[in-house]
């Protein structure tokens, strides 16, 4: 695996982040420009086409179908989507982390994508810990793994609910939202915040968290989730809408969207936190919305297994790797792996680059939706678990 998955510029030089390795390599601009993901990583999603009777049709930026602000310019001559421009910066999102002390930086990072806040705060904390060569105790690792997986369960349940809503399965949708709410309330009770804000800190956790209650509720929620999934997978109405919708063949996308094309790539395979888990990614081969749905719904059950194993298991202490090379850490957020490049100095962040999964998945969505009809937009969109907030400017 040496697929380039991100790049950034620093001091006039360009660096590439690759899959399967934390080592960052220098790269020439010309090589970079020929990359398939050159534009998406820069936040550019222009695919304008023209032709006889072709006209651009706006969906969004403020529309009932989306929960975030995004403008899709659909090129069409009626019903069929020929191509799609995505304008993510209709609402300008800017976050500045450089220049902030560590703790403040973590607080800001938690608010980058609230639904995946624990993943991002863990990513930043862990990267700072690496830079400071800090040792993290086994209890912290255990709690972080459990909460990461809880966040994944919550996120995947929400994604399933959104997909159900798009496919007019309203009962399933509201049931799923209720399940998510139940789990989030338990999380709020045990951690102090429903989105797990303010838990991570450099070198550990800010307070001691008893995960037993969360694990117990998660077990009940997931068993109910299974009943809903069993119902959905035999519903012709639901399956017909997502099967063969937005088929993606590319290999550049991240997370469940990538694993739905048959590629068994999950950052947890390389994540030292999961080294004692014997982790095997879930994958499907269809590449369509149905395959993505099957992947993330199976991941909910897999996450529960991880949680249950983690709550009983014994973790080793997590120690930083000594390396002088520039390196890029990563974490498997519920939407896919996020990669970070960080530099610190004088107790504050001096450089930060973040490649989020949505940056690449959005491009995959634009590619897959071609040739589909307009009514497919919501089913396709919700199956990717895309977050516009992850596409803002973060420095």
């Amino acid at each position: 695996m040496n697929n380039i998955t991100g790049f950034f510029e620093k001091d006039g030089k360009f660096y590439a982040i690759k899959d399967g390795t934390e080592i960052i390599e220098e790269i020439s601009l010309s090589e970079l420009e020929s990359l398939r993901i050159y534009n998406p990583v820069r936040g550019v999603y222009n695919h304008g086409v023209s032709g006889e009777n072709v006209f651009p049709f706006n969906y969004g930026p403020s529309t009932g179908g989306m929960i975030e602000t995004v403008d899709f310019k659909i090129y069409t001559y009626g019903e069929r989507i020929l191509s799609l421009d995505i304008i993510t910066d209709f609402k300008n999102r800017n976050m500045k982390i450089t220049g902030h002390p560590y703790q403040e930086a973590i607080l800001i990072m938690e608010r980058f994508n609230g639904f995946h806040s624990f993943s991002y705060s863990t990513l930043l904390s862990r990267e700072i810990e690496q830079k400071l060569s800090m040792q993290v105790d086994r209890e912290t690792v255990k709690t972080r793994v459990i909460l990461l997986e809880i966040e994944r369960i919550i996120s995947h349940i929400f994604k399933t609910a959104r997909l159900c809503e798009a496919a007019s399965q309203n009962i399933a949708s509201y049931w799923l939202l209720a399940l998510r709410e139940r789990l989030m309330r338990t999380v709020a009770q045990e951690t102090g915040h429903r989105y797990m804000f303010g838990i991570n800190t450099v070198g550990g956790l800010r307070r001691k968290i008893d995960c037993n209650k969360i694990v117990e509720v998660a077990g009940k929620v997931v068993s109910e989730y299974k009943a809903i999934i069993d119902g959905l997978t035999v519903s012709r109405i639901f399956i017909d809408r997502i099967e063969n919708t937005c088929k993606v063949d590319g290999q550049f996308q991240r997370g469940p969207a990538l694993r739905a094309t048959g590629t068994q790539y999950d950052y947890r395979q390389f994540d030292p936190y999961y080294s004692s888990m014997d982790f095997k990614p879930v994958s499907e081969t269809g590449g369509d919305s149905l395959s993505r749905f099957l992947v993330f719904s199976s991941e909910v059950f897999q996450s529960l297994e991880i949680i249950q194993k983690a709550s009983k298991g014994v973790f080793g202490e997590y120690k930083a790797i000594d390396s002088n090379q520039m390196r890029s850490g990563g974490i498997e957020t519920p939407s896919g792996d996020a990669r970070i490049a960080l530099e610190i100095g004088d107790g504050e962040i001096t450089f930060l680059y973040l490649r989020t999964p949505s940056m690449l998945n959005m491009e995959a969505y634009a590619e897959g939706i071609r040739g589909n009809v307009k009514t497919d937009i919501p089913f396709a969109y919700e199956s990717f678990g895309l977050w516009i907030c992850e596409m803002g400017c973060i420095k």
Partner: protein
Amino acid sequence: MILILLFILPFLSLPIALFSSRMSYCFGIFFSSLNSILSVILMLGYASAGSFAIGNFSIMLKGLNVTFLLIISVVELLVYIFSLFYMPEDKKLAFFVGLTIASINSVLLSGNVILFLMFWESMTISGYLLIGFKDETKSYPPFVFISFGELSTIFLMVGFAGYYVSTGTLALGASLNNPYILMIIILGFAFKMGIVPLQMVEWLPIAHGNSPTPGSILFSAAMTTLALYGIVEFILTSVPYFVLGLILMIIGAFSLLFGSIFALSSENSKMLPAYSTVENSGAMIILAGLLSIWREMNDPIMVAFVMLGIFVYATAHAWAKSSIFILSSISDNNNLPTMRGSGLTPFGRVGAAISAISLMGLVPLGGGIGEWLLLESLFISSVSSNLVFAVVAIVSGAMAALGAGIAIPTFTKYFGFITKKHGNPESGHRISTPMKVSGAIMLSLTVLAPAYVYMYSYFIGTLKNVGGRTIFLSNLKGIIYPFLLYSPQKQGFFGLLSPPFDILFIVVAAAILSLLAKGKERKITVWNGGLGQTEEVNSFAYANTLRIILKKVYLSKEEREGTRYQERTFDIFWIIIIDLAKLYSRFSGKFGRFFMNGNINRYVQYIIIALFIVLVMVIL
């Protein structure tokens, strides 16, 4: 005397056209109005024109052609009014329009098959000249028109020869008892109506030949009506045949459905109504089939009801179609997505809307009454004790209903995009007056619906071979006579329709609503997701859903060149005909090179074989 005058008057417009086209049009308006009034008087029985004959020159105005004279005269009136306002200076055009109209009228008045055939051919040739007289016209559309026109003439020629052999007379109205000959004659007429799979007869000369609008109106509204006249005339006078009726119903149902499907996807402002004519022709052929069957089943009331359906449908179609073709000349550009029409006066727009709604087949407008009569006839037939008939009626009824349903988005698209307001409209004002006249005529079919129904039903009762006089107007359900139209069944009433009450209800409800809503109107700017309104959905996009759903019917193909896209749809029957023509051309080339290659031995062999075949045929 009147009859001779009726015959001669249209021809008189020809010399006038050589001096002044305006004069010729005005003269045309005069005699077509005269014809219309006369036909009404004749239908109501206040006078009779009878027939006139010197040797083989025999003309008549009695029976069926009286009604068709009314229908066609009004179409001609609209053609003349349109031409007077739209292109009053073109003498050549005035001449060819006059010639075509004179031929059409002569066919209608013909009393025997020789005269009929002669003027039928003259109509085809004048139609050919009307399409092809302009220098810029492409050569193949007039060619297609004349070749299919000749195909029709050949069938008619063979059929009429058979008619003469079978009945021993050349005069129209003899009882033909050979179903094969009848079928050949009917096919000869049906080819002219552009039935599936020969629908290109209808659309090609109109759409691709840049046929002038008067030509389009005459081909689409008058000639198809004339062909219907031929079919009904022969069905009515011949011995009825059940199977023939079934065949006509099936042909009609397919034409109706395919016509309406292709009409919706058409993006040419003239091709769309031309396809719609294929659809309407299909409906009328179904009615002709029903006529044959109900005659065979010896049910005079149903025969009269189906006849009423034919008359009302033909009337509504011919008049509304004329109006729609007038509307099509709102812009010189024929491509709907890029058309910049509009510029119509409000009344002109109302006129256009009335015609468009009528062609959608919506009550209470004329087309809706026609559609109701068609569907009612099919529904009544579907409860027939004859299982085969019932099944064919149900299937045709379903296809007719589907076709009629598709006609709604077709004409919504047509009217909506053709009259869409643009910054720089073209020529709308020139057609406003003809639109108002045609709109008023169409509206008369609704407001005066009982009068038309009365007149037609009354007249149907006087027709030979039809049966008793049944006037399908009633005073049931508290509705005052004669505002209720009913459909008959053995046990009594089958269905009811009251166009004047419907229109009254719509007008009253609209008036009350507008009064109640007065002053409460609230205008808001269009919400486009927070952006300024930029995109404009075009007519192509409007119909594209059906193109995607019926991909296999349209053979739609997406073509992509880099970042440029376009989607093409094809008329599968047209492709087949082109392929056949290519195959035939190749075959005749090979045949020519092999047998007619200048080799004397071959020619001698050829002559001997031909002689032998002729001898065999003579002996047989």
